């Protein structure tokens, strides 16, 4: 058995050689934010239908959005859209065959996480009338 071919075959990515990389995290986050945005767009359309046809639906949606829970939902949506937008541009850049070197990809992944966080804070601050 020891010298059979099958015992010498390498294992697929293994717990012992696994390590965290920010590029991997960004890839998972892109998918996660895509799902968050899917839900967010759905809820925004309900809000829009309420505004157009059913004031009670609007009031329900608006009540949730203006509650503390609503703040968390909006913050999550805004951060997700910023991340997905900028990481999406990173994807499109890769599609042209550039920016794929590990060093570059690591740098741009950190950049996308930081920029999404800073811009989300600014947008929420301005959107909640912080500037006025």
């Amino acid at each position, binding site marked *: 058995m020891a010298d059979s071919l099958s015992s010498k075959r390498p294992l697929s990515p293994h717990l012992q050689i696994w390590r965290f990389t920010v590029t991997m995290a960004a890839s998972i986050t892109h*998918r996660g934010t*895509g*799902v968050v*945005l*899917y839900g967010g*767009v*759905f809820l*925004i*359309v309900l*809000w*829009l*239908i309420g*505004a*157009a*046809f059913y*004031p009670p639906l*609007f*009031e329900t949606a*608006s009540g949730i*959005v*203006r509650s503390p829970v*609503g703040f968390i939902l*909006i913050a999550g949506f*805004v951060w997700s*859209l*910023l991340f997905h*937008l900028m990481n*999406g*541009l990173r*994807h*499109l850049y890769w*599609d042209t065959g550039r920016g794929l070197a590990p060093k570059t990809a690591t740098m741009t992944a950190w950049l996308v996480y930081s920029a999404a966080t800073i*811009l989300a804070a600014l*947008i*929420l601050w*301005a*959107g*909640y*009338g912080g500037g006025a």
Partner: protein
Amino acid sequence: MSTKGTSTFIIQRFTAVLLAPIAIWFLFGIVSALTSDYATARAWIANPWNGALLGAFLIIGAWHMRIGMMEIILDYIHSWLKDVLFLINWLVALGIIVASAWAIFHISFAG
């Protein structure tokens, strides 16, 4: 990647390119619009620029997210459930397109 391969891949990139600039506009206005009262929200949507851009974002977005979700379903679901989820995913996208066009049109023109 997907069953239809290259055509969905290309449409996914195409909708992403279209969405990118509209998403920037959207991020500027959406927080205050969502947190405003009924009359203010309707006035914001009735503005022709806002109505057109919001409609474009939601309609192109619906197409983009349908393809994206289809990829995700293909990656994780391998049973008969896959086809059910595909159908629901289709209906959600179609619903978003029809509902947002209809709602924005109504607010803009039917008062």
